[in-house]
């Protein structure tokens, strides 16, 4: 009997101690946990996201003024598997700190809002809609309280209202584009003189007189790059002039897709110049898709064939100086154009004319005067005008807001321009 009692006591003690090990541990002075009701305590799906986050909100009331909050979440429905998300003091993590613009989320300082980023919490990518459970532990005057458990479901949103500013701007730009196209077709639009492009005629004329070829290097960009697209427009106009003067052009390529597009463009240009018979398939040649092999071979071709004019127009990286330097050493007249800002200095040093960034985009429109291209250029100018006006007006408004302590004004202005 004694042995049975002893065994029972040992079992009882072990059970108690193991229970205490398994139950949640709370740090701090207090060990008692009572229930608490937070006003308007809600578990939500985070608005306008891919479906990776939830949101817990509750109102700041006088009884929780000096409290400290700890948020727990779980994806299990049996009140287990709680994971601590964050811990903060009263006044922190309010709705105004949520990274959403004023038109899609009410940024009220009196409301606590805790985003629950499940990608980070669960350390795995959330691909499917997910149900979660959440509770908040409140530490107040050394005593701990716990809210009831709320549940919600997170899923992706089809419409990103937070990006409404981007959409509106896109619609305005599109509208301006169509207005500009119609205006350009009816009356034509003014474009100021661009020196580098005026020199194209001079370069082709020189090549014709000297009986030497013209090299047109479209760079190492893919067809999806804006500078490559702009380069193909310039290539079309240069080829047309080459065909008219009955000169010879050579276009070495890095990208096979760009070569295919360029072939069509050059063929079309020769046809438009009424010289389809002068078009040769070997005008466009593929060299290599490796940057420096391409540069080495184009350098070799330039130094051997000694062209009268070299055009480097498109997307260039480290090969810019390698190409332009060799071209300069052969005495060719050189015209370059790229939107890669850190390569432009090399073209400045080695070329006669350089088209800087936007001038390259303008080149196609400037040379062809095609209404569609001119309109596109006008839309770019419109964008620049909006930019300049926005910077000027918004800067003044922000200065006034800062001077007069109008926080709301700066919030509205920055939200309007922020990318979410």
């Amino acid at each position, binding site marked *: 009997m004694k042995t049975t009692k002893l065994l029972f006591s040992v079992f009882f003690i072990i059970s108690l101690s193991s229970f205490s090990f398994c139950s949640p541990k709370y740090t701090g002075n207090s060990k008692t946990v009572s229930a608490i009701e937070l006003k308007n305590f809600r578990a939500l799906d985070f608005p306008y996201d891919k479906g990776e986050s939830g949101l817990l909100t509750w109102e700041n009331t006088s009884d929780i003024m000096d409290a400290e909050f700890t948020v727990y979440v779980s994806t299990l429905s049996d009140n287990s598997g709680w994971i601590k998300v964050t811990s903060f003091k009263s006044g922190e993590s309010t709705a105004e700190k949520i990274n959403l613009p004023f038109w899609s989320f009410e940024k009220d300082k009196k409301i606590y809002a805790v985003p629950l980023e499940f990608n980070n919490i669960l350390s795995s990518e959330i691909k499917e809609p997910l149900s979660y459970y959440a509770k908040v532990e409140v530490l107040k005057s050394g005593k701990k309280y716990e809210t009831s458990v709320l549940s919600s479901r997170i899923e992706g949103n089809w419409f990103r209202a937070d990006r409404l*500013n*981007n959409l509106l*701007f*896109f619609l305005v*730009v599109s509208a301006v584009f169509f207005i500009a196209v119609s205006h350009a077709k009816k009356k034509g*639009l*003014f*474009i*100021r003189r*661009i020196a580098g492009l005026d020199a194209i005629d001079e370069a082709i004329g020189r090549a014709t007189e000297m009986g030497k070829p013209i090299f047109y290097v479209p760079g190492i960009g893919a*067809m*999806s790059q*804006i500078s490559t697209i702009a380069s193909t427009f310039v290539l079309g106009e240069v080829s047309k002039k080459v065909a008219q003067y009955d000169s010879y052009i050579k276009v070495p390529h890095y990208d096979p*897709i760009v070569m*295919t597009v360029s072939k069509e463009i050059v063929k079309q240009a020769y046809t438009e110049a009424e010289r389809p018979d002068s078009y040769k398939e070997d005008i466009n040649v593929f060299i*290599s*898709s*490796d940057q*420096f*092999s*391409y540069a*080495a*071979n184009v*350098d*070799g071709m330039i*130094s*051997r064939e000694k062209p009268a004019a070299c055009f480097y127009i498109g997307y260039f990286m*480290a090969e810019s100086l390698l190409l332009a330097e060799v071209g300069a050493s052969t005495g060719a007249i050189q015209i370059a154009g790229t939107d890669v*800002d*850190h390569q*432009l*200095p*090399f073209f*400045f*040093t080695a070329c006669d004319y350089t088209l*800087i*960034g*936007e*001038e390259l985009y*303008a080149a196609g429109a*400037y040379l062809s005067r095609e209404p569609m291209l001119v309109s596109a250029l*006008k839309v770019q*100018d419109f*964008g*620049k005008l909006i*930019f*300049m006006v*926005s*910077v*000027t007006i*918004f*800067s003044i408004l*922000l200065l006034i807001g*800062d*001077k007069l302590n109008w926080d709301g004004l*700066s919030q509205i202005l*920055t939200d309007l*321009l*922020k*990318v979410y």
Partner: protein
Amino acid sequence: MSEGMIIFGAWVAAALTLFLFSFLYKDNPFFKVAEHLFIGAGMGWYFQTVYYKIMVPKILEPLNSGTGFEIAMVIIPSILGLSLITQFIPKISWISRYGFTFLMGYSAGMAIPVGLATDFMNQVLGTIEPFANFFSLSGFEMFNALIIAIGTVCVLFYFFFSVEHKGVGKKVSNIGIYFLMVYFGASFGNTVMARFSLLYGRFDTLVNYSSAKYLYATSWIAAGLTLFFVAEKLVKTLTKAESAE
């Protein structure tokens, strides 16, 4: 790797480097050898990279082990990609338009919202943001914020093509050019320093390969090249003299 192979590798590396450097003197057969080898090796490397990094994991493996939906998601883009090759067959080259149309549409769809966001909205916000708390900034920060705003507007005006740059416009545009030149100068210096560091790396390798461990690879090849150029010059001079006589 065996000792012999290491020495052979050093000779090849030193030779190709010097052959390419020889272009600084003039175009020559050694440069042509290196140039064509470079193109061949470059394309070979590019092909295997595309095959093992794109075709195998993105096409062949999903086709072998994917579900019906995954296979469809591989087959459709693959067919669009293959359609581009029809460009080389004039009779059916029209098929390539489907691939190109998709490519252009996809690129435009990706680029336009991102372009608007980064080139416009982020840029404006970045320029004006310091003005939101301008009066709590230090003197230097205030000056910085003003310089950035003025510089941005002036540079942008330089790229404004709809009006002739004359009068006040000319002055604003000129200020823009000064800002651009300062940037380009700094960028030039920065890139030249980076290029020099690459050149030092190459020189360091050549110096290493000129040691006894590599059987004086650099020295022998440099001497050979020099001899070739001297002999070539002599032959040319003699031929010229003979033809003059």
